[in-house]
């Protein structure tokens, strides 16, 4: 692996500040990127990684500080300036036009494009670049036809087509299977080998250890340190990131599971487009067990979850909660029968963004005492219950009257889980509960899920994060194109085996 060479700094940030809502996202940050290196940017959520990248990519302008590009001071007024200088970023949410082809997306915003674009030339260029860098993708396909992994390749191709010298990849592996992740690492090493610099944002230590030359760790918006990856033990990196020693909780051996609390039999559900998304899934979840469903996003997880909680009509099959058929029951009925649901989108579905934390904690329970007496609300209950739960679940940043959307992701998730746990459910459906959370919040969320299991709740965990699935689940199922294609006890599962199943290759071994 190449080591850093101070004589050929590609980018240098000195004492950069950037504040939002009066909170410093970047506080006196200093960052050096050498030519030809893969440089990992490590930190918890909210540590300021994305802000730093967005400053480099010209999306934000720093409040104070200096940026040097190949030794020269620069000011990027927009991402266009940054791209012209050779700095490009692949955002977590892709910036592609889904109705256009891959080739057309390469042309978008390219400075050399005239009025007419030469599709053939673009397609050829896309294929050549794809072959060279191990980023195969059909240049004539439209973006919406591609998988998430393929869309990410298009984003990288876009930058390569513009000959970007510095590529910033913001948590690129979050949407990939393990195998796809390995392929991406190869591409990253190859780009670095050519003298390009790659900034790799992650909070996964093993990935950072595997692919990067150097690591810069951010904590609370400040640079904690930069080290050569070779010299850094994962344990040390974790301590730099969190500021203390930390062990993520994992389940202990499973106890005796109770009766079936969630029974799904031959369930069929359609997607928004009216296509079959869930095609005959049957699962029994017992009280006191965690059943994990692994799968690449978009294989029917959303429809399955919404079908179970009643947010989406089902075509065929039955759903039973605690032995009662609820297939045609309303959302409210199912909530009252003990079905808790932690959706993937916290502010988009699980919480009312403009209401306060106290109000959000009462979002489901407001219909009964202590929150209401008859048809009238009891204001003191909102205050007292809210204060108790905020304290008990360690929800931070709450101020009177503050809309909940201004809390951090970890605190949002703590509030959401607190509310669902307080319902004392029989069944708890979770979708990617620790997605985007920092290590500290992940710890809290995992502990809550495990304590719910120990209380006797049947937990169905739908996730794309294999670490999370392996740490929490008693049993693992794999979903692919709306069907369960594999099932195994967690002890027999491995990332490789799950990865193959998630990619649609049927399991050869017995389950």
């Amino acid at each position, binding site marked *: 692996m190449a080591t850093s060479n101070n004589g050929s700094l590609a980018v240098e940030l000195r004492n950069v500040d950037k504040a939002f809502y009066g909170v410093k996202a970047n506080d006196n940050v200093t960052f050096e990127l050498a030519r030809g290196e893969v440089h990992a940017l490590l930190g918890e959520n909210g540590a300021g990684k994305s802000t730093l990248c967005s400053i480099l990519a010209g999306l934000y302008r720093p409040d*104070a500080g200096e940026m040097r590009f190949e030794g020269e001071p620069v000011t990027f007024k927009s991402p266009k300036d940054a791209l012209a200088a050779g700095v490009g970023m692949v955002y977590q949410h892709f910036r592609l036009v889904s109705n256009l082809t891959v080739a057309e997306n390469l042309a978008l915003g390219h400075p050399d494009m005239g009025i007419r674009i030469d599709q053939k030339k673009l397609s050829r260029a896309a294929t050549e670049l794809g072959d060279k860098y191990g980023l195969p993708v059909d240049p004539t396909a439209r973006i919406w036809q591609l998988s998430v992994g393929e869309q990410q390749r298009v984003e990288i191709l876009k930058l390569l087509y513009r000959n970007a010298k510095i590529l910033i990849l913001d948590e690129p592996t979050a949407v990939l299977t393990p195998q796809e992740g390995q392929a991406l690492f190869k591409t990253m090493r190859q780009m670095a080998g050519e003298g390009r610099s790659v900034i790799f944002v992650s909070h996964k230590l093993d990935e950072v250890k595997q692919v990067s030359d150097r690591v810069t760790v951010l904590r609370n918006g400040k640079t904690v340190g930069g080290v050569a990856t070779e010299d850094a033990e994962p344990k040390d990196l974790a301590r730099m990131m969190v500021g203390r020693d930390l062990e993520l909780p994992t389940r202990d051996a499973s106890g005796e599971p109770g009766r079936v609390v969630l029974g799904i039999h031959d369930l069929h559900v359609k997607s928004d487009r009216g296509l079959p998304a869930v095609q005959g899934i049957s699962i029994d979840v017992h009280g006191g067990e965690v059943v994990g469903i692994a799968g690449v996003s978009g294989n029917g997880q959303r429809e399955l979850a919404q079908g179970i909680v009643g947010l989406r009509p089902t075509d065929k099959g039955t759903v039973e909660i605690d032995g009662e058929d609820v297939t045609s029951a309303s959302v409210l009925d199912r909530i009252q029968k003990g079905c808790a649901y932690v959706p993937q989108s916290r502010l988009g579905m699980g919480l*009312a963004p403009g*209401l306060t934390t106290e*109000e959000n904690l009462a979002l489901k329970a407001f219909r009964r005492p202590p929150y209401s007496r008859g048809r009238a609300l009891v204001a003191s209950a909102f205050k007292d219950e809210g204060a108790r739960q905020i304290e008990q679940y360690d929800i931070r940043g709450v101020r009177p009257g503050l809309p909940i959307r201004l809390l951090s992701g970890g605190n949002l998730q703590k509030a959401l889980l607190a509310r669902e746990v307080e319902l004392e459910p029989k069944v708890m459906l979770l979708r990617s509960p620790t997605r985007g959370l920092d290590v500290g919040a992940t710890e809290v969320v995992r502990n809550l899920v495990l304590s719910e299991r120990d209380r006797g709740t049947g937990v169905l965990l739908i996730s794309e994060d294999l670490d999370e699935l392996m740490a929490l689940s008693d049993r693992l199922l794999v979903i692919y194109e709306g069907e369960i294609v594999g099932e195994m006890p967690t002890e027999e599962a491995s990332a490789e085996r799950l990865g193959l199943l998630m990619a649609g290759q049927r399991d050869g071994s017995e389950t």
Partner: protein
Amino acid sequence: MTTRRFIVEPRGLASNRLKLLVPLGSIFAALVVSGIFLLLTGENPFAVYGQMVDASFGSSRSVAETLISATPLILTGVAAAIAFKMQVWNIGGEGQFLMGAVFAAGVAIWLGDGTPAAIILPAVILAGGVGGAFWASVSAVPRVYLGTNEIITTLMLNFIAINFVNFLIFGSNSPWRDPEASAFPSGRPIPESARLAEFFQRLDVGIFIAILLTIVAWYLMSKTRWGFAVRIVGDSTTTARYAGIGVSRKILGVFLLSGAYAGFAGGLFVSGPVGALDPRSLILGLGFTGIIVAALARLNLIAVIPVAILLGALNNSGPALQSIGVPTATVTMLQGAILLFAVAGEFFIANRIRRPDKVDDLAADAGVTA
């Protein structure tokens, strides 16, 4: 090098003091700007403003007239505010106000002379609410069940209601038209027992009913289970569905309630100062002005009351200006200026502007020279 002189950043949470100060500042700024304009046209702004204050609050008669004008604006303001809070864009307050007046006058005339006030008065006011809710339902039902755009339908229904009222009096021999009106068609006077009692100059008890209804709306929205569910729906329909709330029914309910409040305004106006379905006294844009009231009150139901009184005063001061040779349009200009500054003021409630901290400056300087 990249250090900036000023930093504009979103404010997390605006204090109550600020929420009060910014609208007051907006009104002051509007007065200053309009004053400069008056100065340029050769008027003395202090004299003009003095005259306006005098015309709206200078005597017991003018105070009474101001409150008479404010009464319907309170209710049309509440009507707009409860709908807008819920992201229901009911801009049909004008039509709902007029249909409320039609229903109220109709019930009064139908019950006729001799019906005791204890029966006819509640019936008339209630009929106003029913009329407004009915007119709102014409937009609300398709909006909720078919997804039509309520901005367009409520706006269009305003003009149908205006023409319908004109038709009842000018275009037909309807029961609403006064058969004894000789020279010019006018509305048939409603029975004396259906009129609200005047207690201070021409001011009738309608102002108290309007304030009471406002407090009821505020209680309903902020202190009841139904109101809480409505606020969740208003914040995010997806979240409301997730929490098991019947979203369609809530939207329908709020839409009808909004229409009913505009209709109450029509009913109170008919049984108060007007006393008949009289197009010239009713079609004044009171429903439209309610939208301005709601916006200036920042959709706060209690704040609607003082804002409505302010706009009522402005409306009343117009004619007085003519007597000193200033065009009545000055009032319209001032209204527009206040609204403009109030909208601009929202920016200062949502954002703050600050100088970079001293420490940052030092750090930045060090960074540049290092």
